[in-house]
């Protein structure tokens, strides 16, 4: 790329996991990037060696482990940390944020607020007030109003290899979409826009449930007919849950919904898919999670959505049987049977 086009303004990325680094590298094609790594040893390694493990950073990516520096140097920041740590990270960042900041997150998970002593498994029901999307966490914890998210079929490995791909930037603010697009767009990376932030966030979150289920199918050596059934019913279930929570149907039909769903349901590179696959191969969930170095958001999402649909009285058979399989020791074949025997009446009922 022509150096003249490299923007003077620095863009911030918070989180140096695999997707954080991929994001930083994508952004570095158009701008200078300041990447925040929480652990100083990781920051040092990235600074000195330009890589951590297999992951290399672009030459225009500089590294810090000081959040104040990120907020001070960058008006536009992409937080990309697992939902589990998202709120605490935002709390740490908040004192340095100003109303002029724009935050575009890339986290496909939910935040959950539990009463003391409760866990996500002991809690019977969760109401909507207890469950937050990442943009809602940002709004609650900071003075920043201009928020957005990046979603879509973004398997970190493929993007890192430089394969052509696309994403959606969603925000209620045209300004945020414009900036997100300008920052991410390149000859091999298309960036679509969507004004329905909540739906796009939710689609990205819910598809992880189906990715685990799809992994299970592969682990059981089922073929593509079965997977097609799962993807179709899975999409219907996602839309059904989404509608009850106030999302609109349309965004589910785009990159953030069906696009992302198809990519993760077919990909062995997807963490959530891997969880399902190994589970079906006979490993226990604890074993699997202990051996993964990065979070599979879908596992926590299944538990949250299970408690949420309980409250809202939503029927979601795939999520429910997946929950029982993952956490209550239900036999996988029984889960499959439930899926096959569930009385879906119509083929397409949600349009």
């Amino acid at each position, binding site marked *: 790329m022509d150096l003249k086009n490299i923007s003077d*303004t620095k863009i911030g990325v918070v989180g140096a996991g695999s997707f954080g680094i991929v994001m930083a590298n994508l952004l570095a094609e158009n701008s200078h990037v300041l990447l925040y790594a929480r652990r100083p040893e990781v920051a040092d390694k990235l600074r000195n060696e330009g890589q951590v493990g297999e992951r290399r950073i672009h030459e225009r990516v500089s590294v810090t482990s000081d959040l104040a520096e990120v907020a001070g140097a960058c*008006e536009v920041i992409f937080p990309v940390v697992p939902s589990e740590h998202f709120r605490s990270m935002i709390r740490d960042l*908040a*004192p340095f944020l*100003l*109303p*002029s900041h*724009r935050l575009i997150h890339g986290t496909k998970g939910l935040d959950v607020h539990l009463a003391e002593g409760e866990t996500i498994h002991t809690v019977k029901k969760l109401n909507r007030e207890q469950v937050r999307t990442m943009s809602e966490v940002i709004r*609650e*914890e*900071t*003075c920043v*109003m*201009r928020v957005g998210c990046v979603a879509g079929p973004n398997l970190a490995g493929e993007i890192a290899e430089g394969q052509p791909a696309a994403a959606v930037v969603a925000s*209620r*603010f*045209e*300004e945020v979409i414009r900036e997100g697009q300008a920052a991410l767009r390149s000859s091999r990376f298309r960036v679509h826009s969507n004004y329905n932030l909540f739906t796009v966030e939710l689609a990205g979150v819910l598809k992880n449930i189906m990715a685990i289920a799809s992994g299970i199918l592969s682990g059981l050596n089922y073929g593509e007919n079965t997977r097609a059934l799962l993807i179709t019913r899975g999409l219907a279930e996602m839309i059904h849950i989404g509608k009850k929570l106030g999302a609109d149907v349309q965004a589910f039909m785009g990159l953030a919904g069906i696009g992302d769903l198809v990519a993760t349901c077919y990909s062995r590179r997807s963490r959530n898919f891997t969880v399902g696959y190994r589970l079906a191969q006979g490993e226990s969930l604890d074993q699997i999670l202990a051996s993964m170095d990065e979070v599979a958001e879908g596992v926590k999402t299944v538990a949250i959505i299970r408690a949420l649909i309980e409250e809202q009285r939503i029927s979601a058979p795939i999520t429910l049987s997946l929950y029982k399989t993952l956490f209550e020791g239900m036999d996988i074949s029984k889960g499959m049977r439930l899926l096959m025997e569930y009385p879906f009446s119509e083929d397409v009922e949600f349009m």
Partner: protein
Amino acid sequence: MESVRYYIQEGILYEPVIPDIHDWPIARLFRKKQRFLQEVIGESTSQLAEFAAREGMTISDLIERTMYLERIRMTEEPWKVDPRDEKPFWSQMKKQLVRNEQESISADLLNLRTQEMLESIVERYANEIVSTFKPNSYHFAKRFLPVLFSTLLNASAGKTLRSMVNHNVQLQERILLAGETEAIRSLTKHGTIVLAPTHLSNMDSILVGWGLHALGLPAFTYGAGLNLFNTPILPHFMMRLGAYKVDRRKKNPIYRSTLDAYSTINLVEGVHSLFFPGGTRSRSGAIEKKVKLGLLGTAVEAQRRNFRDGPRSGSGKIFVVPLVMSYHFVLEAASLINQHLKYTGQEQYYLANDDFANYRKFLKFVWTTFSKSSDIVLSFGKPMDIFGNFVDNQGNSYDTQGRPVDIRQYFMSQGEVREDAQRDAEYTRMLGEKIVERYHIEHHVFSSHVVAFVAFQMLKREYKQFDLYGLLRLPEEERVLEIPAFKETLERVLYRLNELASAGKVHLSRHMINDTTGIFEHGIKNLGIYHAQRPLRIQDEKHLVSNNMNLLYYYHNRLTGYGLEKYI
């Protein structure tokens, strides 16, 4: 001591914030009325040019569209207040448009001509909207109104002549000014206030007017529906008190833009304003769940300008104060709820004429409301900036974690205050949502609304098989509830309300500090007390009955949105 007596005589409970009426922002503005009007016209015209460009229209298209809508209005909805030269004016415009088309004139000349036409339309509208604030009229009104109010209050309460003299004390007892009154008094000195009340009754604006006066605040300007100007005497006062005219029939872009410019420049000039964000009175009786964004948008726009151009008065900050009014009894309840049901259910309901069609009706209405209401609460909510951050008494903003916020930066990117209509529309939408949220929190729950809620929900549960309209048509002998079961349910709902109040999610009115039986009795006694048909009354020792299901539904609606249904 002397001064206290003086204020009480004047109907003021607090010392005036600005003692000299000639120093009030609104008085200052109207001393330079012509310049103000010119600014409104200039502002609106340039906004319209931008609007047309954005929509890919020419100015001629815009005028033609407006003319079309105006012709429909003039034939289908003519009013007495409409100026006589309206039709000739638009015929003239029409001729001019035709001439522009027929003559082959240069693009420049065409531009010049259409620009002139646009200006003359805007000017016409601006003159229609504008009010005049006259200190002398205000002096008269402020003496006249409290006397009128308190006489009404006391006469009906059967008080002695002696107590009538101390009328203001009585007025204060009847109408509770609750909430952040001190903060509002302080904020009038630090910026411009936008007071945003819920809207239930035509009494609201009069009550708010009295409330602001009693708080010692300068006059607020507000848009009064042009239909109120069809009456003979009232308009005279309203105009002189700073009310401007809003014609809801005119939905054309040129009128809307002129109205917005009028409001924006008022705010920029530091004139405190009263917006009813709900638009019209709540037909269902519920607290607004959605608000109109047009006028709120002018607050956002005024704020942005003050940051861009520097403030013309004070800090240039705009403060939004939600205000929730509660009554046990709304005189228009019957016609409002019927309109609501007709609208939602396509039912054939008899539609009463507007209750304010003439002056006598109006006076009678004021009389009834004041003389018969046992309790009225004006709950002034926590003041916020236009981004929904709370502000302290000096007008400094704080975020949800209590950190100071420099709100100017919400309009900034790359280090500059920037114009972005879509961004500001989004800020406006968020402000609307915040106001709705605050309404539900600042709301003071009345005993009468709780009993109405419990009664209606119990009937709804008992007759599960019916939809709303079936339920409302229930024969009278089936609208009966047993008192012991009723009190049991009431207790559960009260328990939940107390929980909500402790969590800061709603307020309970002071008469709610009582046991279940006390609240039950107070509620039944006061619920829609002067309706010909009682929404709920005690039938015999063991039973309650509703004589009017629509009204029961209306008062019940006040408590929807709190998730109380689960406790029935």
